[in-house]
């Protein structure tokens, strides 16, 4: 059992750190630490330029095969990159949907033409993607998709009608991948297609969703006749579910340590405030601060187990608990931040409703246990997949 990274990996770490140190300067100094969760809508233009700088340095898509411009980086190297990126205060990645979702999907299921057309733009930090999965009636129940894809014989194109929701940065993206119903006769997992659409066209309307913070990171995307070509269908007609699910398998948790680095920054700030305002002397808060520290370290070693897991990438027990673990830890951290701040937690300095970082943390973390599979869905998955307990029956409403 081996906790440390080997020498080669540590050298790779140094290389990443040096490059980021050298490049997060000048025009990019202003976007250090910006654009993260809850801040995604800030400095978008600057962050797009930053994506291109990353690309020039060869730091986009490092997990991709070299044939497509990647480095074929090992799990360890990818982990290290994410860690150092977070440590250096690298801005929120506008390219991550393309790099981590679109790319791997096309590499696994895409046609050569699709790879030729789309991978280079992602790798170069030139073309940005957003994801079209959830719908108002397809949240936890993702297979309940109503958006229709109709083949328009005359135009020789697929046309789309319906609505997607919780699409982050849709208004800043060039393309969207859409899971849509190709066969209205079929329901559930069957009769869905996986399509690649340009966003800049008629028949697509993007509306921001204002959240409890007063800011809007998510959007609704409405389709009314928007279209794509026949070759923009990934995989077979009616076989989109397999493609969409395969995509979820690609996340081997390489970004989790990077995420934890951001959590650590938040916890450190809370500790700093507690020491400054006397909260650190209150036994009840001391217990909770210790719990937060222990919980974050738990996430770390849980991730290391996960990343050291079976080489076939099969989902291990510790991988199945990760979402439930981090989201509840983070939500509790938000509450802890408020209690450590004490009466100051209520004070909003910037009018009309400009929240400070910990106030945003508190409100935003309520979403952590909802998106990407609610606590309830996660517990179902753990019970059913990890423990082999009976599945929840579907209803017929």
């Amino acid at each position: 059992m081996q906790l440390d990274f080997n020498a080669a990996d540590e050298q790779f770490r140094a290389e990443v750190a040096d490059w980021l140190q050298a490049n997060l300067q000048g025009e990019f100094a202003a976007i250090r630490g910006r654009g993260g969760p809850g801040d995604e809508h800030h400095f978008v233009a600057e962050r797009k330029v930053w994506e291109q700088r990353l690309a020039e340095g060869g730091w986009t898509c490092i997990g991709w095969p070299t044939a497509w411009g990647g480095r074929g980086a090992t799990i360890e190297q990818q982990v290290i990159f994410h860690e150092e990126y977070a440590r250096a205060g690298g801005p929120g990645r506008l390219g991550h949907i393309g790099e981590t979702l679109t790319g791997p999907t096309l590499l696994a299921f895409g046609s050569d033409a699709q790879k030729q057309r789309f991978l280079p733009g992602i790798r170069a930090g030139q073309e940005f993607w957003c994801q079209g999965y959830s719908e108002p009636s397809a949240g936890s129940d993702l297979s309940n998709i109503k958006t229709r894809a109709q083949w328009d014989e005359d135009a020789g194109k697929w046309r789309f009608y319906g609505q997607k929701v919780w699409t982050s940065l849709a208004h800043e993206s060039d393309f969207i991948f859409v899971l849509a119903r190709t066969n209205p006769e079929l329901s559930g997992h069957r009769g869905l297609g996986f399509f690649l659409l340009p966003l800049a066209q008629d028949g697509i309307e993007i509306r921001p969703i204002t959240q409890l913070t007063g800011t809007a990171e998510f959007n609704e995307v409405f389709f009314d006749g928007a279209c794509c070509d026949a070759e923009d269908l990934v995989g077979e007609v009616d076989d989109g579910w397999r493609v969409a699910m395969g995509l979820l398998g690609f996340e081997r948790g390489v970004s989790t340590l990077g995420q934890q680095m951001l959590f650590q920054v938040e916890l450190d700030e809370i500790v700093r405030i507690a020491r400054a305002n006397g909260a650190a002397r209150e036994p009840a808060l001391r217990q909770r601060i210790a719990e937060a520290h222990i919980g974050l370290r738990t996430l770390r070693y849980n991730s290391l187990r996960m990343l050291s897991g079976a080489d076939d990438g099969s989902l291990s027990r510790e991988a199945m608990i990760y979402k439930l673990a981090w989201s509840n830890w983070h939500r509790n951290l938000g509450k802890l931040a408020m209690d450590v701040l004490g009466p100051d937690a209520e004070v909003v300095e910037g009018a009309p409703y400009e929240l400070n970082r910990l106030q945003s943390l508190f409100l935003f973390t309520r979403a952590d246990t909802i998106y990407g599979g609610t606590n309830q869905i996660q517990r179902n998955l753990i019970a059913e997949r990890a423990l082999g307990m009976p599945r929840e029956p579907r209803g017929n409403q």
Partner: protein
Amino acid sequence: MKFRFTDEQSMLQETASRFLEEHSSSAVVRAAAVTDGLDRALWQRVVAELGWQAIPIPEADGGLDLGPVELAIVFEQTGRRLTPTPHFASALSALAVRTVPDGEARQRLLAQLAEGAICSLAHTDARPHWGTEGVAIEAQATPEGWSLSGAARFVGAGHAADELLVVARSTASGKLMLCAVPADSEGVTVTHQATLDQSRSMANLYCEGVHVGHSAVLCDDWEDSLAVVLNMGRILVAAEQVGCAQAALDMSVAYTGERIQFGRTIASFQAIKHKAADMMLKTESARSLLYYAACTADAWLRGAATAQALEEAAHMVASSAGDAAFFVAGTAIQLHGGVGITEEYDVQLYFKRARALESYLGRPDESRAVIAGLLLDAPSVTGGQGHAA
């Protein structure tokens, strides 16, 4: 022993519920939230049609001479509707003024309050905590009276107040004084303070050498009374919390009963049902303690309960209702799923209110620490209470 509302109390509850359903809608609350958290017209209407401002005021002073139970009934309903009026400031002021010796100022203030004037108690800077050590206004003796300097935060509706009830520490005696200070006095600055919970109206007070005549000093040794008034305040806050929790539970049951996933209403999932059951358990538990605490406050006003009994009751319900409201409103967001975190749905308003109330005047764990002190450091209060309700 009839531990339930009298017919009059039930009627008060129904009237409040009906009135607020019509006049304290989500639209009204949201309109006030983007300004200063106050709907002055609504308050005028409450004053004119319902007279809630007169509930805690003696008949002799033009009030209804009703008690904390009636206040709790009304605040449970305003909490359920997040009603944007200065009622809390008004009630707390009336309870504060009732503690001071009779006199011209007392009579004038109670009469004003009975007519709906807005008065605000300014008692602490709340740095770092809510206790009396947070009193940050000093009173310097002058030939004509006193000169007040310093700041107070979280002054309820303070920027809209006609008169401020300022708690200041005398540099001479070191004791706490309660002073009546007209809002337009020279040296007084009161500004609205935006809060994370947008729906409660709070202000900051700055005093710079504010002159206070002897007649405006309502009490020159007010520390014990302040403790009593804050305990009364905790009970009113708890009433709001119970109403807030009830509303969040009701909207969760309604939403999950309509939302369909996997071909079923999500209310049919046992995980959702059991969350709702826990929400109700905590809400009803807090409500039981609330009614006890209100009765105890009533008894204290009648001289039939000790200040320690009031302290115990207030901190018990502060602990219970504070935890309940935050748990219930937080769980309500969870049960709403994605829409729960949107600005559009009301559940987030209740969550923010629950967060604000939970920390106002002290956190639940701080209240438990007070209870622990009564139990473990002083002669036990647990024993021998068998039939003393």
